[in-house]
């Protein structure tokens, strides 16, 4: 692989088979350094499998993986932080002990790890619980401790598998801020999620996989441009007049009584041009709504059918 200086992670033709079943197939993408990168896909798509391969915990059947310029994450593990999808900590250890232990495994020395642990717990509102056994904490609190343990050693690359699940809305917000802060410090963050809003708010780039295959890779903008732009408007003008407008691919009547229409734009057509054309032709508009397509819709349109099938196949086996 070449030009890896600006890449934190690069996958090239990566595949993983379990027996005859291909969990991941021919996956190629690169995570730029300093970016927040989203890993999206329906249940059983192969996200966790890909992340585990990224970390060198399972070996790919085919292809090559490069992490922070090394061909194995194990070689650079001290610069990587990982939050697995299934969380767990030693129940009889305290948050301070846990964070110190995880940081020391990553090569930090004891005193520094301790100082950092106390700092992080303070900053994330867990100072009062620093010396309480994990078993006495709530699930969400334990999860926060684990997230802190993931970043305590100051990793250049942070890999989070569904970090938002299990957190309340306030703590989801806190985590979003934490991820943004990590980027501001120049670190690369890669996370998987089902919740599109998080990806939408945070990600510079994202990859979407479905049934083990790459469905999309690129910026949010590029993802949006894949979707036909939809405009909702209200007018007394006849439907035919709308269909004649430039750049209109289709017109659907939503509500005849009030004259509500949904217009799909042709590829490359702009909403502003349509608005101008309406004025020029004297079509009186009562409302005009051209909000951007939500990532949710993109997700559903790209993987929707596949996701249902995959779910049926795994029969709920994937967590």
């Amino acid at each position: 692989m070449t030009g890896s200086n600006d890449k934190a992670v690069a996958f090239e033709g990566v595949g993983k088979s379990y027996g005859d079943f291909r969990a991941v197939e021919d996956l190629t993408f690169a995570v730029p350094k300093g970016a927040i990168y989203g890993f999206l896909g329906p249940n059983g798509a192969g996200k966790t499998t890909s992340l585990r391969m990224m970390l060198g915990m399972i070996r790919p059947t085919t292809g090559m993986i490069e992490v922070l310029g090394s061909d194995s994450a194990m070689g650079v593990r001290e610069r990587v932080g990982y939050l697995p999808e299934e969380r767990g900590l030693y129940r009889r250890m305290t948050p301070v002990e846990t964070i110190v232990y995880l940081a020391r495994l990553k090569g930090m020395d004891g005193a520094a790890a301790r100082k950092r642990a106390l700092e992080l717990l303070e900053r994330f509102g867990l100072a009062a619980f620093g010396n309480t056994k994990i078993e006495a904490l709530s699930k969400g609190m334990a999860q926060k401790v684990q997230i802190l343990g993931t970043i305590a050693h100051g990793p250049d690359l942070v890999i989070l598998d569904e970090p938002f699940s299990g957190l309340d809305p306030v703590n989801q917000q806190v985590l979003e801020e934490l991820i943004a802060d990590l980027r501001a410090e120049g670190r690369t963050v890669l996370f998987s999620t089902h919740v599109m809003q998080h990806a939408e708010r945070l990600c510079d780039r994202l990859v979407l996989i479905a049934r083990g295959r790459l469905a999309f890779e690129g910026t949010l903008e590029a993802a949006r441009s894949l979707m036909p732009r939809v405009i909702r408007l209200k007018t007394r003008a006849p439907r035919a007049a709308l269909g004649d407008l430039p750049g209109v691919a289709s017109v659907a009547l939503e509500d005849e009584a009030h004259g509500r229409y949904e217009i799909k734009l042709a590829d490359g057509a702009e909403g502003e041009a349509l608005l101008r054309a309406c004025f020029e032709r004297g079509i009186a508009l009562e409302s005009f709504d051209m909000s951007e397509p939500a990532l949710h819709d993109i997700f559903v349109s790209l993987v929707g059918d596949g996701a249902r099938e995959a779910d049926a196949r795994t029969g709920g086996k994937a967590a």
Partner: protein
Amino acid sequence: MSALGRIFQVARREYKHHARSKGFWLTMVAVPVVAVLAGLIPQWVQENKPARAFLVVDQSGGAIEAAIDQAVANDTEKRALSALKDYAADNLPAESVPMLSPLAPARGEITAADLAAFRAWGGVEQARKILPGLAREGAPPFVPPGPRFVRVPAPAGVDLTGDPAAIGAALSPYLRSEKKVQDAAPAYLSGAIIVPPGYDLLKPAAAIQYWSVNINEYDLMTLVEKALTVTAQQAMYREQGMSQEAVDAVAARRVALQGFSPDKAAEGGEVSTKDRLLNIVPLGLALMLWMSIFTVANLLLLGVIEERSNKLIEVLLSSVSAEEFMAGKLLGIAGIGLTILFAWIVVGLLILINGSGPTVQLAYDAIALILSGPYIPAFAFYFVVGYLTIASVFLGLGSVCNSQQEAQSLLTPLVFLLMLPFFLIMPMMEDPNGPIATTVGWIPLYTPFVMMVRLSTNPSWVEVAMSGALTLAFSVLVVWAMARLFRNAVLRTGQPPRLVEVWRMITRREA
């Protein structure tokens, strides 16, 4: 950080985690305490049994009753003499012991002649008088044990003139402890001896009857039987025309065998109690070896199952390799095992230092024996090899199980396999260089245990070295196989794999 550094971190956490658990402290302190108590309690119970009341209904004239009284008195005196022996060993300086030594032989049972000598010397009264002057400073006073049996007079109002069955019936409420036989202790009757009319020791017709509700209590019965047998034999000698002196000489006669062994040829071949330790001490060491390995190997199994079911393993494996993790756990738990062993030794020594008496002396002899032979290096080697083999198998087992219940079903056959040498202890002790012991000694899994037991019987050094090399190689192989299984299995979820799958996980080339 280096691999060694990570292994150390894992080991350290493992050690701290278990060192903080209650089970650890319990194992460390409770085991030696229980062991000591198990040794002391039966003796204590025996010594502190309260005296039991019995009565004698002698319808034959009174000679038997007198003989029984004598037997009970002798019994009490014998106990006093043997307590005096123990007291002297514990509390008299070595140079003053000879002053008392004619009173009792070093070994063997106390005879009538010994008792007679003791009585002639002055008995318990004399001991009470002279001991305070002889005993070490601060020694407790000599307290002779009380009688085991007290003959009580027949309770008033009980008709003792009928046949034995009628007397037994009349005594029934007393024998059942429904009525007190006297006000002072012992207040309840534990047995009654009924001698039928016309009973003659020389020509016994009907049997002497022993009545008691406790049919398992043989002490009094045995005592009376033995005493009356001797009385009867002596009466028969006299009837045959022997003089009383001759009869007494016969009674005092004692024959002892002395054990010899060719291994002790240099010292004249004589075998002492110390030498018998040669068989017992290595067996004790082997048991200690196996038990300590078991105790901690189980911790490994439970630990891995916890890490798997808590989903901890994935976080850890993003920081350390499966092999480093395994090595760290093995090391940390070995530390726990060694700490426990060390604590046992310290507690044992503390008990020894504060104790005294023949048992303690024996323990000192055992220590001297251990220090004089190849036992310590052998123990260290066999511990390392046995621990690595067994502990890594337990780790491997943990890596394929999701819960303790799942592990339990797999553990049972495994534990049986590991306990097998226990069933061979008897044949091995009887013939330490025989075919069974030799064969099993070559099975790598059992070499540490078996060779530890056999070490005192001078097996050929070729055998020791070769079987040692074999078991070491086996242990390396097992650790290697378990490391592969661990790496491939530990992140799996779902049902535990079948045996073929386990085999595949160990042997296949790539994970």
